[in-house]
C-alpha cells in the first residue's frame, strides 16, 4: 500500500509534468481561442489569419522589448515585454482595423457567404505571414528577461523533502494570472457596458440589432480591437514562456480552433474551457503513467510498458479527435455556441 509520502510524490509528479504545464498552455490557447470565437460571434467566420495576427502583434512587442532592453529599461522581476505590450497591442489594433477596412468591409457590405470571408482570411494569413518575416525574419527570438522561477524543482524538493519536485515558472504564473484578468475584464465588458451589450445583441440577431439603432461598423471595429488585443497578449505570453518564432504561431491556430469549437464557437466561456480541455487532454493522454503507478503501489507493481495511452506523435490529433466527437455528439459544442451570450 502507498503511504502518505508516496501519494504526495505522485501528486507532485503529476503537478510538475501534467497540471502546471497544461494549465499555462491551456491559458495561452484559451486567450487565442477567445479572439477566434469573438470574431466568429460577431463577423460570423472562422478567422484563419488569427495565428499570424498573433505573430504580427507579438513581433512588435519583441522589437519594442529589444529597444527597451538596449536602452537599459527594466522592471525586474517582471519581464520588460510588459512595458512593450501596450505598444504592440496598439499596432496590432491598427493593423486589424486596417485589414478590416481594406478587406472584410467590402464583403460585409455585400453580405456574402461566410465561406468567402474564410477564404479572404486565408489571403490575410499569407500576407501577414510574409510581412512578419520581412520585418523580423524567420529566426527564433528570445525576449524574456526578469526572474525565471516562482518555485524551482530543486528548492521544492529541499523545502518539502519529497523525491519529486515542482517547478512553476514566472512566465507560467503570469500567463495564468493575465488570462484571469483578461477574461474577467472581457466578461465585465460584454455584460455591463453599453457597447458589450450591443455586441451581444448584434451577435444574437444582426437585423434586430440594426433596427434597435446599433451601429454595425462600430461593433465590428470594437470586435477587432478586442481580438487584436487578445491575440497580442496571447502571443506575447506564449513567446515569453517559450520563444518567438513566426512559424510556430501559424501552427498554433490548429489547437486554438479545436478549443474554440469544442467549447462552442462564439461562446467566450466555451473558448476558455475548450482551451483547457485541449491542453489537458494533450498532456494527460500522452503522459506515461509508469512512475505514478510505481508510487501509488509503493513500488509493488512495476509495469512492463510505460503506461502511455497514446504516443506523443499523435498529441495534436487528440484535440481534433475531441473536436470530431464533440461535433458528432453535440455539434454546437459544450456550451451551445453560435452567438455570444
Amino acid at each position, binding site marked *: 500500500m502507498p503511504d502518505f509520502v508516496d501519494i504526495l510524490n505522485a501528486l507532485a509528479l503529476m503537478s510538475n509534468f501534467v497540471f502546471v504545464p497544461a494549465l499555462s498552455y491551456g491559458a495561452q490557447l484559451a486567450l487565442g481561442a477567445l479572439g477566434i470565437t469573438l470574431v466568429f460571434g460577431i463577423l460570423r467566420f472562422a478567422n484563419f489569419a488569427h495565428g499570424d495576427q498573433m505573430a504580427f502583434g507579438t513581433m512588435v512587442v519583441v522589437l519594442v522589448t529589444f529597444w527597451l532592453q538596449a536602452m537599459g529599461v527594466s522592471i525586474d522581476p517582471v519581464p520588460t515585454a510588459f512595458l512593450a505590450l501596450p505598444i504592440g497591442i496598439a499596432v496590432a489594433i491598427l493593423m486589424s482595423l486596417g485589414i478590416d477596412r481594406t478587406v472584410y468591409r467590402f464583403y460585409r457590405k455585400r453580405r456574402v457567404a461566410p465561406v468567402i470571408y474564410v477564404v479572404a482570411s486565408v489571403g490575410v494569413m499569407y500576407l501577414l505571414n510574409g510581412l512578419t518575416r520581412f520585418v523580423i525574419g524567420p529566426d527564433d527570438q528570445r525576449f524574456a528577461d526578469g526572474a525565471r522561477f516562482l518555485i524551482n524543482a530543486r528548492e521544492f524538493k529541499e523545502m518539502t523533502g519529497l523525491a519529486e519536485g515542482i517547478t512553476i515558472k514566472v512566465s507560467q504564473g503570469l500567463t495564468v494570472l493575465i488570462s484571469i484578468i483578461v477574461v474577467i475584464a472581457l466578461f465585465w465588458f460584454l455584460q455591463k457596458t453599453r457597447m458589450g451589450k450591443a455586441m451581444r445583441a448584434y451577435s444574437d440577431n444582426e437585423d434586430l440589432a440594426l433596427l434597435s439603432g446599433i451601429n454595425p461598423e462600430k461593433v465590428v471595429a470594437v470586435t477587432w480591437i478586442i481580438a487584436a488585443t487578445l491575440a497580442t497578449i496571447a502571443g506575447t505570453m506564449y513567446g515569453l514562456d517559450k520563444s518567438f518564432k513566426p512559424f510556430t504561431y501559424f501552427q498554433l491556430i490548429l489547437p486554438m480552433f479545436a478549443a474554440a469549437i469544442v467549447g462552442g464557437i462564439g461562446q467566450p466561456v466555451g473558448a476558455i474551457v475548450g482551451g483547457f480541455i485541449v491542453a489537458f487532454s494533450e498532456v494527460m493522454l500522452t503522459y506515461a503513467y509508469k512512475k505514478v503507478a510505481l508510487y501509488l503501489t509503493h513500488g509493488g507493481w512495476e509495469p512492463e510498458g510505460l503506461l502511455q495511452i497514446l*504516443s506523443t506523435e499523435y498529441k495534436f490529433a487528440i484535440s481534433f479527435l475531441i473536436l470530431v466527437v464533440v461535433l458528432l455528439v453535440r455539434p454546437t459544442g459544450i456550451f451551445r455556441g453560435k452567438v455570444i451570450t
Partner: protein
Amino acid sequence: MKKVLLASSILALSAGLSGAAQAEVKLGVILGFTGPIESVTPGMADAAELAMKEVSDSGKLLGGETVVSVRGDSTCVDSAAAQAAAERLITSEGIAAIMGADCSGVTGAIANNVAVPKGIVMVSPSATSPALSTIEDNGYFFRTAPSDARQGQVLSDIAMDRGIKEIAVTYTNNDYGKGLADSFQAAYEAAGGKVSIVVPHEDGKADYSAEVGALAASGSEVLAVFGYVDQGGRGIIQSSLDTGAFGSFLIADGMTAESLLENFGDSIDGTVGTLPGTDSPGAAKFLEVAKSMGVDGDGPFRAESYDAAALILLAMQAAGSTDSAALKDKMLDVANAPGEPIYPGELAKALEIIASGGDVDYVGATAVELIGPGEAAGSYKELLVEGGKYTTVQIR
C-alpha cells in the same frame, strides 16, 4: 554556364538574363529559406558565401575569377518548388555547382531529378540520411556531413564509455532525427544499453510539455536529444531543465552549438555532444574568420556549409575549369591527404598551391575527409560541457 549558352544556341537565341554570366563563376546556394528550418538556413548560406568571398577576394581562382552566390529556396519540404528552383539556377542563372540542399528529402529530389541528370556537382552540408549514400549519382553528389549511421555509432560509444546504461531518446520528427535515433538505438542496444523510451518531437510546435512529461516518466537519468538547437530540441531541453526532469543530455551535431550554452550555461554541465571534426584547429579558425568578416559562424551546419562551398571552389581550381564533369573528379583529391593541410581562412594559399601544381588536403572547419560514395568519413569530436563551456574529450 556553358550549357546555357549551348541551349541558347540550339534555339538560336541570345539569353538575355544570363548573358552577363561569363565574367564570373556562379555557385548555387539552395537551402530552405522558407519553411520549417527557415531559421537555420540564413546562417548556413552566410557561411557558404563567406568561403566564396574569401576566394573572390584572393583573386586567385582560375586566374582571378570572382565567385557569385545565387540563392535558391529549397523550402526544405516542397520538392516540387525545390526542383523548380534548382532547374532555374542551373539552366537560367548558369550556376557551376550547387552548395546544398539541406533536408534529405529535397536533396534527394534535386540530386535525382535535376543535378545528376544535368551533370552538376552538388555538395550538401546537412543531408545526413543514410539512404543518400546509395543514390545513383554518377559521382556528382557529395556531402560534408557524415551519414547518420556513423554518428549513431559514435553517440552509442560515447554513452557506453560514460557508463550510461539506460537512456531516453527524443528526436526531431524528420529524416535527420529519425534516422539518427534509429541508428543510435540499434548501436546502443547492440552494445547492451537500454533505450527506455523514444519520443519524437515536431519542430515549430506550440508546446513540448507532453513530450517532456513522457520522457521524464521513463525514469532514465540521461536524455538523448537529436534535434535542432534553435527549434524543438531547445524547447525540450528548456522544458526538461525547468521541470527538473533531466539535468544532463547526450546531443548530436544539430544541437552542439555555442548558442546552446548561451541559453543554458552551466545548467547543462555534464552534457556530452558530438560535433563533426577532429582536434584540428579548423573549427576555431572558422569562427575567427567568420567573425572577422562580420558573420556569426556558430550554429548548426554552418561549418559544413563553409566547407562545402570551399571544396567546390578548390576542386574547380584543381580541374582548371568550372565544368562540373571535370571538377567532380577532383573533389576527393582536394579533400583528402596527401597534401598541404588547409584550414578556414587559408583558401587563398590553397588556390596558389593548386595553381602551381601542388597538392592540398582540405581540412576545413570540420576536418572533411571524403570517402567512397562522396561523403564525409565522419570523425567526431566528443565534447563535454563543463562550467558552461565545451571541452573536447577525445576524437572518435
